[in-house]
């Protein structure tokens, strides 16, 4: 008994040593960056971290005379962690912004804290429509699923696709993508022959793909979160759906630039609607991709521009308030902000604090020996169609 109780003394000592906190520095503006660096969504975190670092390398770490400090935290995309980490950042580190959020549940978990502490929450990745409605202090620099799904539906209808099977991950963004796409298709007289939902964690797509194949649709509309596209495409090809003439369409998450180079030629011809492709033909994007690849050794994807533009939004808002970190003033500065991003022209909707951007229709092609999403049609200044009209 007593022998073990001494472990207890040691534990107390260790606890004391580990719990002492470092002194706080004044005159710095702190950004708590909470992203998944481990676990299934680690690729999202990796992209955002790289983009944030690149932005700071290019634009310096001083804005309006104040030093910008980014505090990186890993939440493993587990919402309980996100919430605790955000709370600690707010009360202990006294951060002025919280940013990141790899998946929707993590962004939602933090929303009440943003409201309570009056701190801007910059969503750089998560894509469910409702997120920005959960707190007046949330702004988004990524995208929403309805944005690309509705555009995808419009394109499909124009191109003779009438019979579609939808296959989405079973969580809020998936439901968003499925609903906005299906509504648009049905309204125009198209048919959804099957609506399939697959589990978010550790999915095995094979049985679901078999069901999709049995329905013999013109096209398969797919949403899986960034990072799962590789597995999906592999099983899509294994089931022979590509040879059966089923078109692969969907929001661009499935042909994510991060994994696209490893997907193999079977994916060539997949048509997706999305806000960013690494092969976007602007000069700004060419410079961005070159600098990004040089610094990191891998290709930037749509998550990276979410991070890059998120940092830009924070920097510009601080310039507007002249370094004032009052949450309400910052949010006023953020609303209506317009700028040129590597993905094209974007702005923050002053009413919903959500992003307004071009949505491009792209097709996977081989360019100079590598697979890319080549943009061939542009829908300009798309607002989030998922917001309820007020």
């Amino acid at each position, binding site marked *: 008994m007593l022998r073990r109780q001494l472990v207890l003394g040691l534990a107390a000592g260790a606890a004391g040593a580990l719990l002492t906190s470092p002194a706080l520095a004044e005159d710095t503006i702190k950004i708590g960056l909470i992203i998944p660096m481990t676990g299934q969504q680690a690729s999202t975190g990796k992209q955002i971290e790289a983009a944030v670092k690149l932005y700071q390398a290019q634009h310096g770490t001083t804005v309006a005379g104040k030093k910008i400090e980014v505090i990186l935290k890993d939440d493993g995309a587990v919402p309980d962690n996100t919430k605790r980490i955000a709370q*600690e950042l707010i009360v202990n580190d006294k951060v002025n912004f919280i940013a990141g959020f790899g998946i929707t549940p993590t962004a939602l978990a933090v929303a009440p804290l943003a409201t309570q502490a009056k701190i801007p929450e910059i969503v750089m990745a998560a894509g469910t429509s409702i997120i920005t409605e959960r707190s007046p202090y949330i702004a988004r620099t990524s995208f929403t699923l309805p944005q690309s799904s509705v555009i995808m539906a419009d394109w499909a209808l124009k191109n003779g696709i009438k019979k579609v099977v939808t296959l989405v991950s079973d969580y809020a963004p998936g439901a968003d993508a499925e609903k906005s796409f299906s509504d648009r298709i049905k309204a125009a007289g198209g048919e959804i022959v099957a609506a399939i939902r697959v589990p978010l964690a550790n999915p095995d797509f094979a049985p679901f793909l078999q069901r999709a194949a049995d329905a013999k649709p013109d096209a398969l509309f797919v949403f899986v979160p960034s990072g799962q596209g590789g597995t999906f495409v592999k099983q899509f090809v294994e089931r022979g759906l590509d040879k059966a003439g089923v078109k692969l369409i969907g929001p661009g998450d499935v042909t994510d630039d991060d994994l696209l180079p490893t997907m193999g030629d079977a994916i060539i011809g997949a048509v997706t609607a999305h806000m960013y492709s690494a092969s976007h033909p602007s000069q700004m994007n060419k410079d961005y991709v070159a600098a990004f690849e040089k610094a990191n050794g891998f290709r930037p994807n749509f998550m990276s521009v979410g991070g890059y533009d998120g940092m830009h939004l924070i920097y510009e808002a601080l310039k507007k308030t002249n370094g004032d970190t009052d949450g309400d003033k910052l949010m006023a500065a953020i609303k209506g902000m317009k700028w040129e991003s590597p993905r094209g022209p974007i702005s923050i909707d002053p009413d919903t604090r959500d992003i307004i951007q071009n949505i491009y229709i792209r097709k996977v092609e081989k360019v100079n020996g590598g697979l890319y999403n080549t943009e061939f049609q542009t829908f300009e200044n798309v607002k989030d169609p998922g917001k309820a009209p007020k």
Partner: protein
Amino acid sequence: MMAAEESGDASRTLVAQANAALAARARWSPLEIAFWLAAAASIFLFPTKHLILTEIAILGLFALSLDLLLGYAGIVSLGHAAFFGFGAYAAGLLAKYHVVNEPVLALLASGIATMLLGFVTSFLVLRGSDLTRLMVTLGVALVLREIANRLEITGGADGLQGIVMDPILGRFSFDIYGHVAYVYSLIMLFALFLVARRIVNSPFGLSLRSLKGNPLRAAAIGIHVNGRLVAIYTIAAGYAGIAGALLTQTTQFASLSVLDFERSADVLLILIIGGTGYLYGGLIGAVLFKLMQDWLANLTPQYWQFWIGLILVIIVLVGRDRITRTTDPIRALVQRATDRVWSGVRGSG
């Protein structure tokens, strides 16, 4: 006549001896008192760390619950998160739909609901050997997780959003700094620890140990083995449920991660770090594990899992005993001092 009286005397002395032994076990040692004083002091010493301390207290309670199973009754479980998660969702739903608004009452209600679940599933665990038990407990947790993922009411993978907690006892509302949450969790942990301590030092606890050692022999001397196992499984489930409910109440949020396999695995690890069968193992393990995790994750957000893994392997390879052996002389000294103080108390009393 003589013989009967003699055997009566003998059994009476035996009972007296057993009672004395149990009383000796139940005695509070100074280190135990110091542990709880340190826990109370942490409220004032580390006011900025209350959020993580709350998590440690909850994790400690969860590990304590597993210790009751593993350390005292010898039941291995790979799915203890089933009860943690059930309690977490129960508390969340009670608060969200305003069934029970007062947190302490809701906590008890969640605990009782989880005990019911524990009672029902305990009959599955009675069957078979350790390996079967591992599989059955794992299976129960997986089934529950999938149910929570499917049901509309739990919010699926998005988690249970929009929980607002009422003030505790109508007076203390949860603050953003986590002060109230920590004091609340610590009090609950201490209260439940006292109950657990009473249980394991009772004749019931003693019978658990005997059936852990040798179930056949325990049955032969008249202990109702299955009845005891069902009882302790139900109690442990209730403890885990209360731990889960505390997590939901203090974070005002519940997600599928409360039912994750990782959570069951983590709590087992924590118990292995801290040691089983003396109640403090889970608490100490929780303190060490969580602080180490937090510290490493801050040092290297990308690769902290590697370091955690490495440290765990080292702990197991070196062995806790070898680490603690170096401190044996100090322990012996404390032991002697304690004995003297106690005999002094008894002598004067």
